């Protein structure tokens, strides 16, 4: 019998797509070792000085920490709000549903500058000083449409009787949600967390208007781009960020595998 060797085209495509996704970000590490301040070929020579300088770049590091905080809190808040709203939209027919759905999508269409400046006016008028808190409030606003649309498709076709079963077994509404609903829509939640974190991590306009003395990373980099000489520091930081994300991922995967093996 002749065995036909099947080429897993989809896997090949997936790898190619990963190359497409990673190609630009992998150039960042390359140039973070380049002994020059202009990010262009040809390369000038190898150096570690940009990394060495990182230690002194308090503001840059602080900006990154700020961004991580803002991104995480935003992701959690937007996903929670989106989760509840999407649940309502998919499950219940109620007066004002369409209105509410439309409203929640609005942040996508209003120009950032308008949102940003009017929020600043609003926050200042209620005595809320520009700070990371206001940035988070703004980011939740722009991230919400993303989480709602993702969570809505996650809740589509959700089997109602599972919740009823939990409720029937004496769980409270909250307990049912935590022990049944959440784990089942987990893929949607993960997707939403990832997306909203990414939205926040890269957002500039709102962060610029709403941040006080603690800038987020994009704000810092945007304002610094007028000083290209500092760019390599940022590249070094970006590379470290990338490296640590990948490391975290690998560690998590390693432990996951170990736990699976030991449970067998």
């Amino acid at each position, binding site marked *: 019998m002749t065995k036909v060797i099947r080429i897993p085209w989809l896997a090949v495509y997936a790898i190619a797509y990963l190359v497409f996704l990673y190609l630009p970000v992998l150039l960042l590490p390359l140039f973070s070792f380049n002994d020059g301040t202009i990010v262009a070929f040809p390369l000038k020579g190898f150096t570690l000085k940009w990394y060495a300088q990182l230690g002194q770049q308090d503001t840059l590091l602080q900006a990154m920490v700020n961004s991580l905080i803002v991104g995480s809190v935003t992701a959690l808040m937007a996903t929670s709000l989106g989760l509840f709203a999407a649940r309502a939209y998919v499950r219940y027919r109620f007066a004002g549903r369409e209105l509410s759905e439309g409203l929640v999508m609005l942040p996508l269409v209003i120009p950032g500058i308008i949102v940003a400046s009017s929020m600043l006016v609003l926050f200042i008028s209620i005595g809320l000083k520009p700070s990371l808190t206001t940035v988070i409030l703004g980011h939740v606003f722009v991230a919400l449409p993303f989480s709602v649309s993702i969570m809505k498709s996650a809740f589509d076709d959700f089997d109602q009787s599972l919740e009823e079963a939990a409720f029937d077994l004496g769980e409270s509404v909250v307990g049912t949600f935590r022990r049944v609903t959440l784990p089942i829509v987990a893929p949607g939640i993960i*997707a939403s967390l990832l997306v909203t974190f990414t939205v926040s991590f890269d957002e500039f306009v709102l962060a610029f208007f709403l941040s006080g003395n603690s800038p987020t990373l994009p704000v810092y980099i945007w304002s610094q781009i007028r000083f290209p000489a500092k760019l390599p520091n940022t590249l070094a930081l970006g590379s470290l960020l990338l490296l640590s994300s990948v490391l975290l991922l690998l560690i998590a995967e390693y432990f996951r595998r170990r736990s699976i093996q030991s449970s067998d």
Partner: protein
Amino acid sequence: MAGVLRSETGKGLALSAPATLYVGLLVAVPLCILVAYSFWTQTYVEIDRKLTWANYQEAFTDPLVRHLMIRSVAIAGAVTLATVCLAYPIAYFIAFRTQKKTLWLLLITIPFWSSYLLRVFSWKLILGFNGVLNSALISLGLIQEPLTFLLYNEFAVVLTLAHAWAPFAILPIYVSLQKIDRSLLEAATDLGCSKLERFVRVTLPLTVPGIIAACLIIFIPTVGDYVTPALVGGSQGKMVANLIQVQFGAANNWPLGATLSLLAMLSVGCVAIVFVVAVTALGRRIR
């Protein structure tokens, strides 16, 4: 009260209230400001609060506005199409061909946890004059002179954005693929469908909600993007958002900026509605 909360309407309103109120409160102010400004005028730093149609008149008569509006929608459409088409197979791969779903989801989002500006810089390195691509082609002897049509045009804008929006397209499509009951696919195969037909007649229609979500998430903000076109679009890449941006910034003409924004929002809204209706209808026509 308890009774109200137990009805469908009550539960629905209660669950959606936090999000609705949050957005509602924060959106009301900007929207009102936008509408108000669009009927005012500004000279230098003085706002004239007399109501007038002048801004709308200007926006409607200026061929530049129309030109940029159409180009923006066209570019955003191309970006959306490219992104979703490129992303679908990956979402499919993650949903059906791998066990390590979370790992893959993280793999496709990690690249985006670095600064957007830096990634755009990188694209210029790849597509640019002495860039990765040109160097590779030259060293392979395929070309003598660096190609210049790779960067600073619509192509570069579409490519860069198709990259930037990748996870935003992959994730919603993945979520809707993930939910498909495997026995439906088997049923289609059983009824004689090849893999391709099965995809077109069952998988694709069932993922229409995910596709729509992805398209809206990408299309709407892209129409309003002014950074990417400015960075990689070259002299050809200007979009309506650049014009709006100038009004709010250098030109300091908020009334005109507000008017243009409202018009852009309206156009985007119309295009989006037409799109959703068309795709839904198309999904239904696949039998």
